[in-house]
């Protein structure tokens, strides 16, 4: 014989089965919250500043002597979403090569951080930038002009990486 035991109905106490006292209890909780401090943030007037561990949009580091990236293409190779395209060219600088073209397709990027992890030059890091809005596909592809970020804005992430990577 199929008998279902331990149904919700069987688990309820007498008072719960009465229903009305429970309604009053629920309303009580709601009422209590109204007098507690508020958590809601008035975005965009009020903005949230993530910590160093946050993985926002990947950017290229621009330090005192210029861009760090040597266009080795490892980030492009490791990227599981095929978001990165790098074209190398030769420079007179000591490190011989630089990215003539560096594009990240933010429509492809899944914010995994692999590019940052593989980079031998600490040249690509995950920033705190989480505001990624564009109105067409073309704008989703970020070139070097949008990717290069001065190093002082990336200190939090670089410290985080040195400590935990």
């Amino acid at each position, binding site marked *: 014989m199929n008998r279902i035991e331990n149904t919700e109905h069987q688990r309820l106490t007498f008072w719960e089965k009465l229903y009305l006292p429970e309604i009053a209890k629920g309303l009580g909780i709601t009422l209590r919250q109204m007098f507690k401090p508020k958590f809601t943030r008035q975005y965009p007037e009020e903005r949230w500043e993530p910590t160093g561990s946050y993985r926002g949009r990947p950017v290229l580091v621009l330090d005192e002597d210029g861009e760090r990236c*040597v*266009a*080795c*293409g*490892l980030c*492009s*190779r490791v990227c599981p979403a*095929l978001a990165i*395209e790098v074209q*190398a*060219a*030769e420079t007179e600088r000591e*490190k*011989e*090569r630089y990215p003539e073209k560096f*594009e990240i*397709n933010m429509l*492809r990027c899944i914010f995994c951080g692999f590019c940052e992890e593989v980079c*031998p*030059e600490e040249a690509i890091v995950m920033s705190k930038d989480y505001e990624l809005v564009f109105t067409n*596909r073309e704008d989703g*592809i970020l070139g070097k002009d949008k990717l290069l970020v001065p190093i002082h804005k990336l200190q939090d992430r670089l410290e985080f990486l040195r400590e935990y990577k």
Partner: protein
Amino acid sequence: MPHIYIDGRLFEAKPGQTIIQVAYENNLNIPHFCWHPELSVAGNCRMCLVEVGFPKRNPDGSIQVDADNRPVINYFPKLQIACATEVSDGMHVRTKSERAIKAQEAVMEFLLINHPLDCPICDEAGQCKLQEYAFKHSRGFSRFDEEKNHKPKRVIWGPNVIFDGERCISCSRCIRFAKEIAKQDVLTFVQRGDRVTIELHPGTSFDNPYSMNVIDICPVGALTSRDFRFKSRVWDMSFNDSICEGCARGCNIKIGVRQNQILRIEPRGNPYVNRYWMCDYGRLHYQYVNENRLTSPMIRIGDKLEKTNWTEAVNSVVERLKPIQPNEIMFVASAKATVESNYLLVKFAKEIIHTKNIDLLEHFDETFGDDFLRCSDKTPNLRGARIVGASSTSHSYRISQLPDLIREGMVKALYVMEDDFDDFPELYELLDEIDLLIVHQYNLNNKLTQKADIVFPAATYAESEGTYVNVDGRVQHFKPALVTRNNLRFMGMKMSRLDKFGAFNDRWSQFEYRDVRQSWEIIQMIANKLGAGWNYRKSEDVFNEIAQHLNEFKGMTYQLLDTHFGVVVGKSKNPDPVVPVYESHYMKPD
């Protein structure tokens, strides 16, 4: 015949062979840097250290055995280098024993002490012998905290080669190549110990016609190509096998492609043609495939060439051929086109148009040929074209008569397949006098294209499948390395990772699939429009027909050609034996 044991396996060796040779012929790999089968033995990298020993003998001369009845081997206290130790009967070699592995690790540690480890900016990364061995045969960490020494970088050795002293591991392969193969003995070691580096003899330049081969044999990235430097990472390119079309030697090559552009060309080992080498001309002769290509058929309207589609162009050929008598048309076959295309052109001329007027141009340059690989015949397939009947006979017009024939009005239409008149410039002037000029061409800026009435965009060798017959009569088969609209279905998956998986809206995949076809396909379209009813679906169908009809090709198939490194005409019954081909270091497929 000496018998030797390597890692417990018995091998038969030829007298005078070294241990590493026996191993390599039997598909065993002993780690090595400086040894190369085509170069003299230098024995300076010490990477190939192995344990060598002989069975212990009893006083009566019999072999001592242990409790398990196995011979007791007396290994030499010091390790030997496998590349310079000749085998002798009964020799036992251990390549994977603890001592051998320790020695390999020690050598790797020494080599890496002063190596800059700048793989991220090194073109060799991904196909580097040092990288590979650092992974397989080293400890994986460094005990060296001092400053690495510095040496000259970016030294220009010659028109095509750049040297980086810090990356060099002093294996001397390049020096031996210069002396023994290129016969330009201008490189030498200078200094000693950890300061050692390579210099050119004062006042010389490393500019021999084969100089770029040192880039391939260099086990590290110390030698880079001035043409290629940093164009692409090696894993972002596809490498498909082909045949160089720079001259009649037909060196076997691999074509490195990304975004449907040829980025570089490398030699592929063929013991019967080019060994492991190719010339710099062949290596750098690819711009015409990448640039200025015809991308669709064109028809002359007024005095301008207008793009059109294949059907229109074929219809127009048929239409305009109508008023022309068979003996007023001349076909120019090509020593640059495949055997298949030439065969079908001949068949088309004889069976469909009913004319015997077919000939081809020779392109000889005596200054180009030498006694190594380069031939003065600068076309890949003159012999093949001749065998299938693409040159004139006593009953037909010869190409040298063409100017007179045109002037006298005997030839009113000209059909030129994959060739031009750059070596025969007086013809260009006369082309205005003929009624119809049909060409198959690669490039838009070609003079003949500019004069033509109907232009078909032809596939270059890099987009074709077919065969060439080289200067020694060796028939060699090759396949496409580039994608065209026509071969997309089967070439698509042979492209590099990015090219394969790009979506239509990725910027890196915005390259053109050219709408070019192989000449035999174009001829078949025209023939069928004229009612021939041919049904060749791929190059192989044409080749199989050739193999049936022509004695020279009898018994040949693409498969036979592929397995035997090509087959000499008329020798399909006893092709050359298959022998191992050495690969020093190469891109590992992922």
